[in-house]
């Protein structure tokens, strides 16, 4: 997994989101044991205290729970995971719709666009490389 952080929000919040995503997408299965704080911190290249805080946050929401001496586990309650998935999806849809509104695209048009992308009706599939080689003349980016 890529651990990239944006610059606006606390790192622990972003870590909690990423781990939540792993749980929702099944990378961390219900009931399975999570890697230790130290392992996770090393993997994400963050301070172990920050990782600790992120896990505490997830514990608070009930997605994971701690067992004394044996570590932290993903909840076995699949309903809890499903509801986390739903609320995440709702948030994403809301974000998307706000963006569409900013673009001046109305509800019907959005639905039409979604339908078209589902049926694979793409106008443009060929992507040219972002890198271009200039022929001799130096271009400074």
């Amino acid at each position, binding site marked *: 997994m890529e651990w990239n*952080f944006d*610059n*606006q*929000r*606390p*790192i*622990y*919040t972003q870590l909690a989101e990423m781990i939540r995503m792993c749980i929702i997408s099944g990378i961390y299965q219900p009931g399975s044991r999570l890697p230790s704080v*130290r392992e996770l*911190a*090393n993997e994400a*290249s*963050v*301070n*172990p*205290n*920050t990782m600790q*805080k992120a896990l505490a946050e997830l514990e608070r929401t009930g997605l994971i729970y701690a067992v004394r001496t044996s570590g932290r586990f993903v909840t076995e309650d699949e309903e809890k995971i499903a509801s986390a998935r739903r609320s995440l999806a709702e948030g994403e849809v809301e974000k998307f719709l706000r963006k569409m509104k900013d673009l001046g695209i109305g509800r019907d048009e959005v639905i039409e666009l979604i339908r078209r992308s589902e049926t694979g009706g793409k106008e443009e599939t060929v992507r040219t490389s972002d890198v271009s080689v200039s022929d001799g003349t130096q271009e400074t980016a």
Partner: protein
Amino acid sequence: MMNENILTCRNLSKNYAHLSALSGINMNIPRGRIIGLLGPNGSGKTTFMKIANGLIVPSEGELLIGGHRPGPETKKIVSFLPATDYLPSWMSVENLVRFFSDFFGDFNAEKADGMLKRLDIDTRARLKTLSKGTKEKVQLILAMSREAQLYLLDEPIGGVDPAARDYILNTIITNYNEDASVIISTHLIADVEKVLDDVIFIQNGQIQLCRPVDEIREQEGKSVDAYFREVFRC
């Protein structure tokens, strides 16, 4: 029981003739934290490091490490990486490892060897034949291979390439233990931000602020790097 704060400053001041390099610094550094000491050039970062290592003495006030003034007692538990070259340049890397093993009871030669290998450093090379960046890596590896209670790293990653920088920062957090603290002075805030617990902003020899990284992000809505640029805008 070990005392809670590894380092304490009380009204710490240092004057050079008419220049006041540090004035009236009061702070406590708890154990188990990784702290960034950030400030513009000439703000007093290195002066602080030098006092903490007993290279210079304060004009007023005091600095205590584990309850002791800088001296033989504190040097046992403090691993210092100065900003400048300080090791004999005629020595080879493997000799330096041996030198450190002899010198410091808490030096872990295995750890040093592992890191040197990982960064592909020729241990038979003499220090003076190494590039600036490689020399810095060697010095940092030596400093981090001690099992110290306080690491004072003055500009540790300035000359190091970004890939090795990541490795080194990872080394710092892997070495992390809850009894030890690390103070890193640097200008490369964006690079170190995610490994820090707290940051201290220092300017004109005075502490401007001391806050947890996530608190700055939460309350200011920006990274420490962006916040630093705002606070110290020229």
